[in-house]
């Protein structure tokens, strides 16, 4: 019989990094298997951007003063494009559904039996998905930005750019944690697709994806106290200079606070969820 080995802190750290790297690498390889379907899906996702821009064009054409609630047509196009950049970070297609499915069909047992942390595993898996997505989407994104260059504001000062990058990275974390939390609810209710649908709807309205959040906050002021705004509106608003510089740090701290809350909620849900788990599926 082999004895279990005890590891030093350094050995543990190196081994942990190697596992993450291998998950990342393997998931990227997996992602590239169906490259045709993947490339097509990525390109098709740009169609709504084009139609949305045309839609705003038509809406603004009906307004003689060329302004709608403080947004000009150029502002609106820039806002929409930057929201799409934020969503490229915060949207997590298939994450919650994937967790729910794995709980239902029993494949979640892989994470419970092997010496891995399920959320960590899914996190690096998702990063791999995103990296591959960016590699393919960067071309179309640049093309759309170049075509719409006249509508975009000037590049802001470095401090704001850094804040924007931080907000994007945290948008990724927040998006991941919200969806994984919804997925973990499947430990209690096997079917979470309605919950995911509700989340998608709320996300569409309350993150600023549909219309700028200032318009909604006029009649729903509490929208600013929810984490959704950090998924789309907030990063876009930073680059558009709509967040006063003196509140930038506070807002980023609140965004980080939400991430901590969501992380704790995920850990708690996993801890209790696994105890409830019935290991269905044979």
């Amino acid at each position, binding site marked *: *019989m082999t004895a*279990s080995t005890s590891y030093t802190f350094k050995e543990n750290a190196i081994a942990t990094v*190697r596992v993450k790297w291998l998950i990342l690498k393997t998931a990227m390889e997996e992602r590239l298997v169906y490259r045709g379907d993947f490339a097509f899906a990525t390109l098709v996702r740009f169609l709504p951007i084009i139609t949305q821009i045309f839609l705003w064009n038509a809406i603004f054409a009906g307004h003689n003063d060329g302004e709608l609630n403080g947004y000009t047509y150029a502002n609106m196009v820039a806002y929409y494009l930057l929201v799409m950049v934020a969503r490229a970070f915060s949207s997590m297609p298939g994450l919650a559904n994937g967790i729910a499915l794995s709980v239902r069909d029993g494949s979640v047992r892989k994470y419970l039996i092997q*010496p891995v942390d399920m959320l960590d595993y899914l996190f690096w898996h998702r990063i791999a998905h995103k990296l591959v997505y960016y590699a393919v989407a960067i071309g179309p994104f640049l093309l759309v930005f170049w075509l719409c260059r006249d509508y975009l504001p000037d590049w802001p000062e470095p401090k704001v750019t850094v804040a924007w990058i931080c907000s994007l990275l945290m948008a990724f974390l927040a998006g991941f944690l919200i969806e994984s939390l919804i997925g973990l609810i499947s430990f209690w209710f096997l079917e979470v697709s309605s919950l995911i649908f509700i989340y998608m709807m709320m996300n569409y309205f309350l993150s600023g994806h549909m219309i700028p959040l200032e318009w909604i906050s006029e009649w729903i002021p509490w929208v600013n106290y929810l984490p959704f705004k950090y998924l789309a509106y907030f990063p876009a608003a930073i680059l558009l200079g709509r967040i006063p510089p003196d509140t930038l740090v506070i807002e980023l701290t609140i965004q980080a606070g939400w991430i901590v809350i969501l992380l704790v909620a995920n850990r708690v849900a996993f801890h209790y969820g696994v105890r409830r788990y019935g290991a269905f599926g044979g």
Partner: protein
Amino acid sequence: MLAFQEKAVFFSPCQLVITADSSTITAMPAIVVENLGRTYQVYRKREGLLASLRGLFHREYREVQAVKNVSFTIEEGEMLAFLGPNGAGKTTTLKLLSGLIVPTSGTATVLGHVPWKRENAYRRRFSLVTGHKEQLWWDLPAQESFRLHKEIYRISTEDYNSRLTELTELLGVTELMSQPVRELSLGERMRMELIAALLHRPDVLFLDEPTIGLDVISQRKVQQFLLKYQKDQGITVILTSHYMKDVEALCDRAIVINKGAVIHDGALAEIVDRFSQHKIIELHFASDSTPNGIDRYGVVLEDRPPMLRLQVEKQKVSAVLSQVLAEYSIEDVSVSERPLEDVIAELFTAEEY
């Protein structure tokens, strides 16, 4: 005489208990299960749409005791079969021992660990292989999954290479290593799953229906491999299978479980002895035909003149034999036990044991 320190020392990895006051070294059992129980709450849905609508407001649940008061111990290096019909509690017990689910009562330790604590130290030392085969990445060649396992289980490159070569050769899958898993046959995938499960040299292996759905050749390959591997490595194995051929080929000891409770724990050979009420007498008659009326001695299982097989109650075997030998001209006679498969089937359909 071994000289030891004053304090008792526990080496959980090797399960050796070395006591201070004496030089005795006792090997602790690899698996100890005491009064283990697991109850599920199952939603009781009545038939029809109206009942479904009612179910939206008021749900009825019933409790199902999947495992009740199960106790057993398994020594290091033992290979044990878990037998029972579908829903008997075999898989639930394996899920409990691999830490997938938490029991509602009782305790269990595997290699000194409580499984449902899911400590990494424990998870590095066991493997669970199920017929569901879900350890491998579907769209990638199995070798990619193995490489990930190497990191997850912290296997040194040297060990990894030598073990992989050994396992792929033993299972005859060396050629298939670079083929995506989805393109492998069921039998090939199962063998890859076994490799994934054994790369880290687990001390305990749980096999839940490892040959389910496999053809005879694949079944035999898996059997032969398991037999050799277990003998070479001395690992502790629990096997559940509906194929008695698997069980007979691999295990000496069996635990029979039904309706969540253990009804037999002992040598496999004892099962037939203990639960079978009948034996089989094979008669070869001197003439070319088999006589009429022989069915008064027992149930005729096969009538292929001049051979006839008769199932006779255990207690009556000698009486029947002497009567038959006196009455007919017989060239050859043999008495045998009923096949394990038949005994098990009878056992599970019987009301009381």
